[in-house]
């Protein structure tokens, strides 16, 4: 990470869906190896924000600048943005249920993505070991050959986090990683995310304040498509506006 303090910079972004302003002049920045929690009530624009960064939604105005070379992500395809180093985990676990845990991880593994390269691709000993390592990290070591559709909800969430690890992106966008998890699973997930943030930028979108508190990181509060407050969890929870729109409910 050579000198640059900003990995991703979103500035003045707005997007309107059929007259509804989902994102309104939003600005956001994150540095390499930083953990950030994004919270906000339903409809605050959390998911749309992720859609913009990952190329699914194109903003009407504003800039999205990425990496040391200051590349604009606007207009790039989802696949190119993913290859540039942005990984995304969805709210509902979206693993490929018909395929084994190993296949899911192997597919995500950082490698050339072109059809011909994929056709002739063979895993090296190193890559096999990496898949085993990741399976170990996400607690699925003994289950590599299981069909991932058979996994429990929590295990699927982890598998998806494992796929992010395999992808080895510089920035991870994680949407509600703890949804539907048991308390023990949540704790494990917190640890996993924290250890990830040592080497990656991680943005966690979360509803659950307790979970955010445990992440112990800077918090950005979204409301009606723009940033309402930013700072430590204690700072934002004392903010009167935040209390009014979100916590007070």
């Amino acid at each position: 990470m050579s000198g640059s303090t900003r990995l991703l910079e979103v500035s003045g972004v707005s997007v309107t869906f059929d007259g509804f302003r989902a994102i309104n002049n939003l600005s956001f920045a994150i540095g390499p190896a930083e953990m950030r929690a994004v919270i906000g009530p339903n409809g605050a624009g959390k998911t749309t924000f992720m859609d913009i960064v990952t190329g699914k939604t194109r903003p009407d105005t504003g800039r999205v600048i990425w990496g040391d070379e200051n590349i604009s992500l606007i207009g790039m395809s989802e696949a190119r943005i993913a290859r540039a180093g942005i990984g995304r985990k969805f709210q509902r676990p979206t693993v490929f249920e018909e395929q084994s845990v190993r296949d899911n991880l192997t597919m995500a593994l950082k490698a050339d993505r072109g059809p011909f390269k994929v056709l002739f691709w063979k895993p090296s000993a190193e890559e096999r070991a990496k898949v085993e390592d990741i399976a170990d990290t996400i607690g699925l070591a003994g289950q590599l050959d299981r069909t991932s559709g058979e996994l429990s909800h929590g295990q699927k969430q982890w598998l998806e986090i494992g796929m992010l690890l395999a992808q080895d992106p510089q920035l991870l966008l994680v949407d509600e990683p703890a949804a539907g998890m048991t308390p023990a699973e949540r704790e494990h997930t917190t640890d996993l995310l924290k250890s990830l943030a040592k080497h990656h930028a991680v943005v966690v979108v979360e509803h659950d304040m307790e979970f955010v508190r445990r992440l112990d990181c800077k918090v950005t509060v979204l409301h009606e498509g723009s940033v309402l407050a930013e700072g430590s969890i204690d700072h934002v929870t004392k903010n009167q506006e935040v209390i009014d729109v979100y916590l007070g409910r």
Partner: protein
Amino acid sequence: MRALPSSVPWFLGILGLVVLAVTVMSEAVGTGLISTSFLKVLGMTLCFCLAALAMDVVWGYCGILSLGHMAFFGLGGYAIGMWLMYARTEIIVAANLAGRAIPPTEAELRDAIGSQIFGVVGASDFPWVWGFAHSLPLQLAMVVVVPGLIALVFGWLAFRSRVTGVYLSILTQAMTLALSLWFFQNDSGLRGNNGLSGLQNIPGFLDAPQAAVALAFFLASALALALGYVFFAWVVSGKMGSVIRAIRDDEARVRFLGYPVEGFKLFVFTLTAIVAGIAGALYYPQAGIINPGEMAPIASIYLAVWVAIGGRGRLYGAVIGAAFVSLVSTWFTGGGAPDIDLGFYRVDWVDWWLVLLGVSFVLVTIFAPKGLGGLVDLWTERRGRDRHGADLGPDQGALREREAGE
């Protein structure tokens, strides 16, 4: 080389046995238990099986319900048919003109071939599409190039606009219809609705008995099917198979993994179009005649029906489906099935076969989505039951997922 799925040796073994049995019973080298016309039906069935393999890869594995792959099959047939017709007509015309005092010039010979071939549509000049028809190597290249190129251009336009699902199927059907309508026109230079005929006469082997030619094409079709099976088994194993099945199940998610989904679809669509073209090139010399009606959308719909009945998403399913349905179809429509007299109505299978096929398609789709290939599961599961140990227990994931959504 990665390990191929275990169905490959089974498939090759069974295909080998069938080929051996048919060869032994053929008129050319064996007992003659199988007539030459039935041998041709078998050879053509193998070509259908190869086309069904291609359809299974593009539909069953990659999730693109193409209603155009039989058009590519037809294109392959036309490509080889043009050479067959040209070369054979050349031999006949040359023999007719040989008696003349002055030997015919190159141009005279060409004109004579032209009026022979295009007389039926009231023309005698060679249209541009026949530019390579004099050359076997070039026309063989066209078997691969024409379907491949059309699939590439069409696929590029369709996939980059992110047309998916039923809309894409409609688009492929429109392409097929447009193509067959173009072939139907006399002006297109492909003899309109007459199509190409006499394709069973292979220049260079005109003196060989049809029994021997039929056997040779049967064996070639079997070889092509075997190679096609091994090739596709290789393609759909390993990471390529993983990615294309993932595209079928959730293409948006595959994009977020960094894969250029459109590129993969284009790759699969074009590759399978080429294989369908090759299958067609082997089919039509056995059928003897090709006309644009064979490229109409209905043919591609049949192909999809075969694959669905056989069981999509598994290669041997496609082969079983194509072989079973097309052979049964031959039996029913060829008067093989006895008519059923209901007293008040006589069920004539030549008319009622399509109804039966339609009903079976609906029933298979609803009650046995794995198709005929699913029967193989019953056997492998029974055989393997003892080795699997205890059940891994009920999965509560579904319940929790529902909770998460609430």
